[in-house]
């Protein structure tokens, strides 16, 4: 089985889907000749031509809005926002239009667009190249939000997003792009959107997280296993709508739950996860639900000291996990 990086899995999924379905096309800033600022669309322009790998003007609302229009016609656009931080001008199109298209037309129209965007910090990206923006969209019924954690998940979930008949926001952690490598099957597989995935079975504490933080948790779990602490790790994969069943099951499994996000703490998606657990698992809880998240400051600063202070990292995760295990 070939080993590839997280970003190569993105490219592979795009390429395979473009071969599979002629209606699939890519649009965004610098996605064509350059192959994307992170090189996520590397080689696609040469392979499929400028009409299917479209360099657009620098205007995010148009990228989303034109994509939505094409999707309404029956195309399968994959729009790229160069950084999740720059999705803001497109929020009206995503929330007012894509999210509500099916509902407002009483199932007459739909908008099967996939919008990809690199998110997350730890790359010296400062305030506007580091943000986690998922919570802005995570209370918009009609949208689906996928955040994969491994190259394997990237390929299976991006394919699922492209084939999904509803709009999907697909956030890729930019630090994971080249940091994470893993085995990715060559065959055409699709992973279910809306289903969380147990990344590690354990009986002492439950970690529920997503994206790059899954790896921090896995790393910490291996270390803690030597001390006899056995961590259960649930990767949300789809952070909206949440897989309530899996969350409840994972929380009940140990009764001690640590929720991790790289986003600012207050109002982040893990607050919703905590609410689901509180509603459903009271008599299985053995400790207060814990959250590990970024501080409530606007975004991650540039200077390495402050960036490190903001970012979740394996040490912070390990400490939080041990703390909960000892409770």
């Amino acid at each position, binding site marked *: 089985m070939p080993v590839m990086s997280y970003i190569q899995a993105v490219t592979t999924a795009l390429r395979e889907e473009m071969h599979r379905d002629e209606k699939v*096309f890519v649009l965004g800033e610098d996605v064509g000749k350059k192959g994307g600022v992170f090189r996520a669309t590397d080689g696609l322009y040469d392979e499929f031509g400028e*009409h*299917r790998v*479209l360099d*657009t*003007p620098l*205007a995010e*609302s*148009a990228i*989303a*809005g*034109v*994509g*939505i*229009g*094409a*999707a*309404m*016609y*029956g*195309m399968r*656009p994959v729009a790229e926002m160069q950084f999740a931080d720059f999705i803001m*001008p497109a929020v*009206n*199109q995503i929330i*007012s*239009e894509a999210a*509500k*298209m*099916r*509902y*407002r*037309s*009483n*199932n*007459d*129209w*739909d908008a099967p667009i996939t919008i990809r965007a690199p998110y997350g910090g730890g790359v010296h990206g400062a305030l506007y190249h580091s943000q986690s923006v998922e919570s802005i969209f995570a209370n918009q*019924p*009609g949208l*689906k939000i996928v955040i994969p954690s491994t190259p394997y998940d990237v390929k299976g979930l991006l394919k699922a997003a492209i084939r*999904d*008949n*509803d709009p999907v926001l697909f956030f890729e952690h930019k630090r994971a792009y080249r940091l994470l490598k893993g085995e990715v099957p060559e065959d055409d597989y699709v992973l279910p959107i809306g289903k969380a995935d147990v990344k590690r079975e354990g009986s002492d504490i439950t970690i529920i997280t997503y994206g790059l933080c899954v790896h921090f948790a896995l790393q910490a779990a291996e270390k803690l296993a030597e001390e006899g602490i056995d961590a259960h790790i649930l990767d949300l994969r789809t952070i909206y709508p949440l897989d309530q069943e899996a969350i409840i099951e994972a929380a009940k499994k140990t009764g001690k739950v640590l929720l991790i996000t790289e986003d600012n703490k207050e109002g982040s998606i893990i607050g919703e996860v905590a609410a689901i657990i509180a509603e459903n698992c009271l008599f299985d809880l053995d400790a207060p639900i814990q959250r590990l998240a970024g501080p409530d400051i606007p975004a991650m600063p540039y200077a390495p000291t402050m960036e490190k202070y903001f970012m979740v990292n394996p040490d912070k995760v390990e400490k939080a996990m041990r703390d909960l295990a000892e409770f």
Partner: protein
Amino acid sequence: MSNTRHAELGLSDEKVLDMYRTMLLARKLDERMWLLNRAGKIPFVISCQGQEAAQVGASFALDREIDYVAPYYRDMGVVLAFGMTAKELMLSGFAKAEDPNSGGRQMPGHFGQKKNRILSGSSPVTTQLPHAVGIALAAKMEKKDFVSFVTLGEGSSNQGDFHEGLNFAGVHNLPVITMVENNKYAISVPIEKQIASKTVADRAVSYGMPGVTIDGNDPLAVYEAVKEARERAVNGEGPSLIEAVSYRLTAHSSDDDDRTYRESEEVEEARKKDSIITFAAYLKEVGILTEEVEKEINKSITDIVNEATDYAENAPYAEAESALKYVYEE
């Protein structure tokens, strides 16, 4: 007869009479909705009155079998021309389950009907413009010869989506026709406080497309401009911007009182140029709208409006729990 204006545009007598009939139906449905609103039967009306000529004239210039339209909330004339029925519009007014636009989910004026290629619209203005550009992009990618047609008010032409969408269309040379229905008011704010350029059409130059300003009260002038734009589009010559100038004869909506911001004399003056009157006069002048025909048209439209009202008023609402349906594909 071959020297009439409509004949010169290639329009048959039946065609122009059909245009008039559509304009009048839009007007009469609109008027009925105001009555129903004031009678407390429907909560909200937003009008097409004063803009029927532009809406119907443009629609008749399009290929109503294959072209896509992204109308805005005043475009009753456009959707009627594209196949939506009076009954369906009334169902929307009453928010009944059978409403094809939204099944009673959206306010009236939020059109959408896939079988007639009418894109679903929302309340935030100008969001439909990039959608029309996207449809045009699909036409280009799929090498189809349909065009997309999008309308909006002049106030909406200040939105980022206007600029972003038209620039995108210009850069990629897409078959999309944008018609700004300039009715001189964005709710209460007049055009001179909305737009710094002399006309909306002036903006076209920066998007690399032709822009024309025409008389929106003259359906034939609008027909001619849109016809030309459509030919350019299907010939691969790219997008066009058309500014059709008319006047909003009613308040912004049933919730607005326009006496607070404009003089009634101004409205009375505009009524003299009302296309329903002027176009009828033209048709009479060229001998198409005879007294007999006019009588028949008035009668049939009254019947249609009455029937639509009765049907819609008695139609059932959607089940309350159906509010939960169609958030995602089911």
